[in-house]
């Protein structure tokens, strides 16, 4: 049987645990990168990646093979990422809680200028814009799949994407990276 995502997911549903490890190897990097671009902290991104795979592992029986496996998996990862961002936001609302951890230089996996310009531009976006632009331009997903992952209409994907691009352009101009 070919090692497509669906075949591996079915094999795993049938009890082959090695199949799931192959899926982890296949999607560890894109999931980590999606989370990293969203939360801009390597440690948190690694945690989100772990939790996403563990949840997928536990819920594999709910996966419907007529859909794409990676869309299902990204949906779990995106939800985890948004949960973490919301938790951070809520935490900041309570005085007694320590402030959100500021990313240290070790957290920044990108030493190149382009990466740091990009992080600053992503900081200027709200998380709805950020996730759409990451799914579109990092994972190169079409509008329809982004809509499926985020559970929003394609029209909303487009409008969030276009406004995210507008912010990106404005920020990169402000930083002198685009002229």
């Amino acid at each position, binding site marked *: 049987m070919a090692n497509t995502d669906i075949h591996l997911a079915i094999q795993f549903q049938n009890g082959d*645990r*090695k199949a*799931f*490890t192959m899926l*982890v*190897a296949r999607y*560890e*990097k*894109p999931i*980590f*990168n999606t989370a*990293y671009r969203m939360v801009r902290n*390597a440690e948190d*991104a*690694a945690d989100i*990646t*772990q939790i996403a*795979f*563990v949840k997928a*592992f536990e819920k594999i029986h709910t996966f419907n093979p007529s859909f794409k496996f990676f869309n299902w998996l990204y949906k779990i990862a995106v939800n985890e990422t948004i949960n973490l961002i919301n938790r951070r936001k809520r935490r900041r609302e309570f005085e007694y809680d320590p402030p959100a951890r500021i990313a240290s230089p070790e957290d920044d*996996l*990108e*030493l*190149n*200028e*382009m*990466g740091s*310009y*990009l992080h600053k*531009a992503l900081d200027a976006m709200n998380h709805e814009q950020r996730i759409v*632009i990451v799914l579109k*331009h*990092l994972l*190169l997903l079409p*509008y329809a799949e982004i809509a499926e992952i985020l559970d929003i209409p394609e029209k909303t994907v*487009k409008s969030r*994407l*276009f406004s995210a*691009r*507008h912010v*990106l*352009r404005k920020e*990169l*101009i402000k930083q*002198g*990276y*685009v*002229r």
Partner: protein
Amino acid sequence: MISPKYIELMNQELDGANSPEQTRDLEKYLRDNEEAQTYYRELAMALNVFEEAAMVDPPAELFEGIVARLHPDADFLHQTDPARNGPGLWAACRNLVRFRPVPAFALTFAAGIACGLLLYAGSSWLDLRHGAELSGQVSGTANHRSWNQGVVDEGEWHLAGSEGIYRVHQDGRTLRLHLEIMATRPVVVRFNHDAHLSLQHFSNDSPSPSGLTVSDTLVEVNHQGTGSYDLEFLQDAKNRSPIMMSIHAEGRLVHTKSLNASNAEQEIAH
């Protein structure tokens, strides 16, 4: 003021989602509206920056961490035949983890450091870019800390009506850009740079260069046919921006690429 309708069409054009009619409509609008042309060019460049910032590698221990959480015994990962192969490396490592947690931690840490060094060394020689229309090999860039001499960026493009190669060579503060173009239709190749780079020398081996524009922050070549160009820039100590190369055909921006330029301050620091 750019009409929202055309901002939407510009975005769709960049996604290849416009119908031929919408593309024609947009092209006409861009021809007549300089502000919109600038907006479109800046938008394309910004997206290029996004896609050029390739995926980062996850921490080396992440995969093992996930697998360990999923399957604490992890036997199936490296199944060995004890009768033929003995207990195997995986089993030996597992035994270390089981009975001697401190050495196992040290082993993991050392393995992480070794992987990091290997990745660092490897990345100095080859950096494969993600999803770019232009393919290129990048070596010795500023972020790899080994860029003093030699080729710091090179690549090629293949578009309908034009193709070419480019190479950026660095010699200390001097950046030499070599460009070869074969174009069946007129193309404009534009190099935008900041004021910390200054053009020192320009030469071409082109049968019919129809135009050259040079300003403090721009070099623009109009080209048709087959030819080559050599540009030499001198960068001052404050230069931190790449040169943005953009290719235009029939009044349309068809591609952008940021060329790696290095930083003289870093050269001194490293």
